[in-house]
């Protein structure tokens, strides 16, 4: 199984918390899609894998019009039947969702929609510099819930000025739509974002780590009552509704990432695409390479396994650890085989608890190995 990720790096407005690569100038969109199709064609031929998921991410993929989908689909159809993709997913902004657009999505077989709601509070949306208000979100949620089975809403918590009650209210609101999947992100203040800047200057409120943890717990337990399983730090779903494409990332399944700043992972190598729309288009037209290869060493791969598996509910199963890391099992067991509120180590399986997830960066960085240690411990 493999996935294709298509990046649409355009945004009308800069969200205050976002440090992803995008540009606000939509005038390049048509040129971009042309270049993208050339790239898709080349990449699928270079890496002829059993692709089963297709994911339009961004940026703002809901900028894509019917003609763009047509171009992309025609390209893919030359090498793969669109029907072979079990999951076709698109990220949408609430302000783009109307019945007409839903029909476009349906027409192109898109069977999973990811709506960037973030919050149902207008003040929150303003502070996050979102391009929609709560009413637009509610309407969009309604439409999507009516027309799709498999959909997910994105929410954020630990926002400035947000109380536990506010978060509870947002959860109640979102549950009215009976989602089968939710992505709930603890606000991370990324470097070089407007919000980070404001937080250190004017805004207060989300620095309370105890409150932040209470919100995390509330999320976990409230949604558990709704039958949703917390299957990754920021993702909850009813059984069978997990995001297949994303699961692929966390299980080291191969994926093709197409578009500026997108990454691919194939054959133990990671490919980074240049993070510049104009250069991307120019290089593609000139038939020049747009990717850089990062060859993962055994150590890199080992550290990535720790990083990705421990973020999931399934955790790190030592029985499925590649054979070349056999010698490192002892090391991992030495570390985890102590009673801790942060993890459970049962037989050969290590899972972080809710407490552990909340400080997972700390724990994961602790067990990661540098080259010297890695070599020492594997021998």
């Amino acid at each position: 199984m493999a996935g294709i990720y298509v990046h649409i790096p355009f945004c009308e407005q800069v969200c205050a918390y976002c440090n992803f690569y995008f540009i606000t100038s939509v005038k390049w969109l048509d040129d971009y899609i042309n270049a993208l199709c050339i790239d898709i064609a080349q990449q699928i031929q270079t890496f002829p894998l059993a692709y089963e998921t297709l994911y339009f991410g961004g940026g703002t993929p809901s900028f894509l019009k019917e003609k763009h989908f047509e171009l992309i689909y025609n390209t893919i159809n030359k090498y793969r039947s669109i029907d072979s993709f079990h999951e076709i997913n698109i990220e949408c902004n609430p302000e783009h969702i109307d019945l007409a657009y839903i029909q476009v999505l349906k027409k192109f077989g898109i069977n999973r929609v990811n709506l960037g709601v973030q919050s149902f509070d207008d003040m929150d949306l303003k502070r996050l510099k979102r391009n929609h208000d709560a009413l637009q979100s509610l309407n969009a949620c309604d439409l999507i819930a009516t027309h799709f089975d498999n959909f997910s809403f994105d929410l954020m918590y630990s926002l400035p000025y947000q109380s536990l009650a506010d978060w509870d209210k947002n959860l109640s609101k979102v549950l009215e739509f009976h989602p089968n999947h939710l992505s709930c992100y603890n606000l991370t203040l990324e470097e070089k974002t407007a919000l980070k800047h404001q937080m250190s200057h004017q805004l207060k409120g989300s620095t309370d780590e105890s409150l932040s943890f209470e919100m995390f717990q509330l999320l976990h337990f409230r949604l558990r009552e709704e039958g949703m399983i917390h299957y990754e730090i920021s993702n909850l779903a009813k059984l069978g509704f997990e995001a297949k494409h994303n699961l692929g990332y966390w299980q080291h399944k191969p994926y093709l990432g197409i578009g500026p700043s997108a990454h691919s992972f194939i054959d133990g190598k990671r490919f980074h695409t240049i993070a510049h729309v104009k250069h991307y288009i120019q290089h593609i037209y000139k038939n020049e390479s747009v990717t850089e290869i990062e060859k993962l060493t055994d150590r890199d791969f080992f550290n990535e396994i720790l990083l990705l598996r421990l973020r999931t509910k399934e955790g790190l199963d030592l029985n499925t650890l590649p054979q070349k890391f056999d010698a490192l099992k002892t090391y991992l067991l030495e570390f985890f085989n102590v009673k801790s509120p942060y993890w459970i180590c049962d037989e050969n399986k290590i899972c972080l608890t809710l407490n552990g997830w909340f400080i997972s960066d700390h724990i994961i960085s602790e067990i990661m190995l540098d080259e010297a240690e890695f070599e020492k411990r594997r021998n």
Partner: protein
Amino acid sequence: MKNIRNFCIIAHIDHGKSTLADRLLEHTNTITDRERQDQLLDDMDLERERGITIKSHAIQMDYFFEGQPYILNLIDTPGHVDFSYEVSRSIASCEGALLLVDATQGIQAQTISNLYLAMDNDLEIIPVVNKVDMEGAMIEEVKDQIIDLLGCAHEDILEASGKTGIGIENLLHHIIRRIPAPKSHDDQPFRAMIFDSVFNPFRGVIAYFRIFDGQIKKGQKIKLFSTQKEYNADEIGILKLKPLEKQELKSGDVGYIITGVKQAKEIKVGDTIIASENPSLEPLKGFEDVKPMVFAGIYPIDSDDYEDLRDSLEKLHLNDASLVFEPETSIALGFGFRCGFLGLLHLEIISERLEREFDQSIIVTVPQVSYHCYLNKDPNKKLELHNPSDLPDITTINRLEEPWIKAQIITKPDYIGTLIGLCMEKRGILLNQVYLTTSRVELTFELPLAEIVFDFYDKLKSISKGYASFDYHIIGYRQGDLVKMDIKLNAENVDALSAMIHRDKAYEFGRKLCEKLKELIPKQQFVIAIQAAIGMKIIARETISAMRKDVTAKCYGGDISRKRKLLEKQKKGKKKMRQFGKVEVPQEAFLAVLKLND
């Protein structure tokens, strides 16, 4: 020999000594432009950065004056209080001294104490007001200070600028006219004083000396007076920009000798070199075996690097005999070394050199002075304590003694009150207060050395807004009410953080140290209690709450590589930490004690 002039430059840090030395070398054509490098005499990186000359050197200049050739030996002196003994030996090797005073700054404490040393040694003093070209130069005011201090005439004081070269030629003339030639003792048995030494990895120890009596020939057998050990003068010579080998040197000369000695500690500054044949029976005056007064543990961060650290310390010791070290074990830090230093600056220099030149990652523990301990069973038997953990059971101790210093502070009258306050707070005894001029006061104190090891310099500087200079020398040991204060992390003693402290200071010190550690130790997966204790008694406590949040919300396809690298970096930061029980303590925490704020 009547055409030799041996002199040194007495100056405060930053008063332009090195720049002036450069000009002298240029004017005497000792260096060509091509060889010219700023501040020639300071050739260690560290010295350049700190703007101080750590190890003294000497250089010979040739100069024609009124048709006569002259040899001018400039003996450089180290510029910091910790090296006062080395300074005294350099001074004792000269007949004259330039008293260099920055026209924008006026006279400073170190200048004065070195000036007194020079006067004690009957040196001819030539006062020079430097940086006269600078904006803010107070030439007349500074001259008045000098006149008050020396009782010299106004016209005896020269003006110069090392930067522009003003007055350099004139200065050279005055050096020749005013500084006496070395007294001739060619007929006496050979005696030379070692005023410095350096270590060369190929040649061994190179000793710099000044010949007072007799002469020395290449290949001759010589002895060191203090040990009476015999050596061969494999090579002798004078010190041009590079060493220049000679067959013979005579009384009055300044030069170097190489004997094949591989250990700096064998050749001690201040010692007298004598001939094996017909040896002099009297050493030159003033030899002292300088003892380290400040001790600290130095540990490798990674215990695997212990041997590397030992090698590095050994190499440094070859170079710098005043550094001593012996292996020690800490429960908290594992295997390391207890090292002795001349003072706090010396400690800083050594630890920086270990990190920079030898690429060692080290932890330096709380510095402390050398205490004397007397036990009840034998109250006359002195035990030296270099480490708080060596303190015997408190009930067996008869008394403890700590080293005291005599300190001179020179400052503006505005700051007297607060400076006296500071010294009193540091258990000081004010001995004397003298107005050197209307705008400069000299305060003389007796202080426990231990009190200046912690945060004294910084406070002195901040109180006086930089307008106070400080110099000290050890005057002996005195009994003190001293206790050992321990730091506990989650009830486990961290021996590397233990400190000896005066009982009256213990509570405040404990409270501040706990506060500082709370700042420096990062939040961890559990609550950490930091306690300060004297014996069983807890005197201060702080709590570090458990870490609550360290999580990446989004980790999808394009984030993985960056995230992994980020976490690997986070891990690297942690490697610099030490583990106590379960608590991880960063390197800085071990020096927290030096950075306590009010």
